[in-house]
């Protein structure tokens, strides 16, 4: 059996800018820089250098998800131009690849990197460009405006938070902890009215510690981040990944498999676009109790004016992306 040995190449960055204090970074042919308000991503195409400008707060929120999710499933579009595609061991970084205004004229660029290399670079960018007082994981109403201006310290405590995971379900012996005031998860301001009662479990003798139940609403009411699913149950390849959502999903997620969404509270408006071109496919307003299957050939972005609870149900079966790409599976789970 072979083993893929992967060296960790150093992150390529400039010295801190004399003017703003931020470092600039290069990864392959791409370069990244930021100033008081904006991030610039540049790449060569057709003998010129193209530059795409993004508001720094939006860029950092997107970068935060891509780093914390480990490039997630499929495509993480920072916006309509720049993004990553997880090839599971390698990662594509692209600009304009899924935007016909660029790709039709050959002005796009896609480069593939080993996962450790691009992750190291993205973490370095996130670390350098996130100022003290700004939390890119938080809703805008729950963090400061310190993303604006010249470099001003770090917020490593915020950006090094990870996606919470469990082996079977939080609260089981030896598994992830349930959230509580005591372990740093106070009830979010939007969910002050959510009952915190816990279900009673009366297991047959011999099944203690095997039969389990939690108050999922109470668990979610204590989510400290937004647009960041946590794994709350694992059954084979079936993963329930609930999350609380406020403001705008910072990325447009391009699925490489079908994802099921179950709206547990409040509302989210979704914009659904063709994964390859960004052409509009649908607008979906999900209200509490609604269920939707996000097809495998779209990208989606959500908007929540009030923090809401969403259950994302993932099929983690290895090999699924290849089955969809080969046409062995249809991109949607049901035909009407």
């Amino acid at each position, binding site marked *: 059996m072979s*083993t893929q040995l992967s060296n960790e190449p150093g992150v390529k960055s400039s010295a801190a800018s004399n003017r703003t204090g931020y470092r600039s970074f290069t990864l392959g042919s791409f370069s990244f820089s930021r100033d008081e308000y904006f991030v610039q991503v540049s790449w060569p195409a057709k003998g010129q250098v193209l530059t795409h400008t993004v508001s720094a707060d939006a860029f950092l929120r997107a970068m935060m998800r891509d780093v914390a999710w480990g490039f997630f499933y499929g495509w993480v579009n920072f916006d309509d131009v720049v993004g990553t595609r997880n090839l599971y061991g390698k990662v594509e970084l692209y600009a304009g690849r899924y935007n016909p205004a660029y790709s039709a004229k050959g002005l796009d660029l896609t480069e593939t990197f080993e996962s450790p290399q691009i992750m190291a670079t993205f973490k370095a960018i996130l670390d350098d460009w996130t100022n003290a007082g700004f939390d890119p994981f938080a809703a805008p109403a729950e963090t400061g405006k310190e993303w604006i201006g010249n470099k001003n310290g770090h917020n490593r405590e915020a950006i090094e938070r990870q996606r919470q995971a469990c082996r079977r379900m939080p609260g089981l012996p030896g598994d992830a902890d349930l959230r509580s005031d005591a372990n740093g998860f106070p009830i979010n301001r939007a969910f002050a009215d959510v009952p915190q009662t816990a279900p009673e479990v009366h297991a047959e003798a011999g099944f203690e510690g095997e039969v389990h139940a939690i108050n999922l609403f109470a668990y979610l009411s204590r989510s400290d981040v937004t647009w960041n699913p946590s794994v709350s149950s694992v059954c084979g*390849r079936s993963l329930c990944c609930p999350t609380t959502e406020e403001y705008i999903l910072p990325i447009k997620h391009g699925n490489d498999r079908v994802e099921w969404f179950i709206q547990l509270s409040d509302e989210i408006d979704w914009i659904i676009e063709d994964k390859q071109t960004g052409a509009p496919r649908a607008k979906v307003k999900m209200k509490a109790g609604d269920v939707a299957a996000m097809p495998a050939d779209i990208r989606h972005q959500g908007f929540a004016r009030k923090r809401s609870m969403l259950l994302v149900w993932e099929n983690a079966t290895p090999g699924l992306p290849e089955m969809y790409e080969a046409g062995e599976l249809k991109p949607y789970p049901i035909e009407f």
Partner: protein
Amino acid sequence: MGWCAHRHAPAPGTILCPESSVDDGTCRELRFGDGDDVLSLFLHRRGAQIRAYVNSCPHFSLPLNARSGNFLLLADSRLMCAWHCAVFELDHGLCLEGPAKGMSLEPVDVQVSDGFVRVAAP
């Protein structure tokens, strides 16, 4: 439930592979059973020490390698999960960074005798 409860779990004393088939600084995957019910383990050698773990990332309970036998090994006996980039040190199996930070791989006790790696006796 630990790996021993898996229906295809190798019994104590089972020969897993020749010691010489695990090169220093590499991982070797071993699969028991097939289909959806496979039990995947992997061995890692660091110098004279061979350790074994269940090949399942505690983040999404997926194998650490996306393609059979190919592991993303980093310096200092660290391994990155191919799916979502959790990084584990392989002396103890602890996740150092990434989406399973603070969680651990499930160890499999093995012993080397007569040139073979075997499942250790309980």
